[in-house]
């Protein structure tokens, strides 16, 4: 666009008359006011659960929980393996349940 045309465009709002408010503006306004005063919550307030920010946060939390559960499942159960080894050691040295008193007395 040429500089002359740009100036023309920039001045195109000169002499612009103000847009009047729509017909029955006051009637619609008082109706809305009465509705809000009657205690009907606006639709936006009811649908906060559907807001994108909330939905995205909930989705991220769900994915995180899933990842944690999968990681937990795939990890080897070290506690069971350790218990087996201790029991085997106790059996080897005759220290199974009931033998402790005898060992100590000797």
């Amino acid at each position, binding site marked *: 666009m040429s500089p002359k045309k740009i100036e023309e465009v920039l001045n195109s709002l000169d*002499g612009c008359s103000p847009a009047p408010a729509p017909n029955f503006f006051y009637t619609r306004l008082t109706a809305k006011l009465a509705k809000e005063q009657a205690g009907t919550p606006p639709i936006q307030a009811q649908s906060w659960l559907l807001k994108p920010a909330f939905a995205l946060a909930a989705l991220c939390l769900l994915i995180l929980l899933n990842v944690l559960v999968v990681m937990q499942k795939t990890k080897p159960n070290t506690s069971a393996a350790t218990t087996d080894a201790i029991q085997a050691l106790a059996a080897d040295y005759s220290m199974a349940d009931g033998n402790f008193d005898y060992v100590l007395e000797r």
Partner: protein
Amino acid sequence: MQEVALIERLKVGDEAAFKELVLTHQDKVYNTALGVVQNAADAEDVAQEVFIQVYRSIHQFKGESKLSTWLYRIATTRALDLLRSKKSKKRFGLLQRLLGEDNEPVYDVPDFNHPGVILDKKENAAKLWKAIKLLPYNQKAAFVLHKLEDLSYQQISEVLKTTVPAVESLMHRAKQNLRKSLEKQPE
């Protein structure tokens, strides 16, 4: 004096005073909102919200500024808030389509033109509105108040709660940005 009396009547919940306030200022509030949001339905919503806010918070009005300045301030703030919320909704466009209100897609209304523009300037004005849409919020508010509502820099500084030099700077940068945008548009 008349304004002080009107405010006092509003504070005691006088319905006739509220009607007088709305009928006196509805055009300037609607016109300001329309200039900022560039959509008739949104502008009407904004204008309604402005008067509802006035109705609820008239007790907080201390009379430090004129009533019209306060109305302009609420109108620009509300209109810019709507633009911000629309922008964030567009960012989450896909989710909005899946989960949004009424499951309607979010879209821009193309090629706005103000109803008060003189007929032979309509084509140029449409190009200007397109460029105004791209302005940063404060520059947009200052430009609209100056061009559409014919407010002086002093009045704009009171509406935007800033200084006159700051408004001059806003207007200068707004014009610079508009020129840059218009250079890219075809004749």
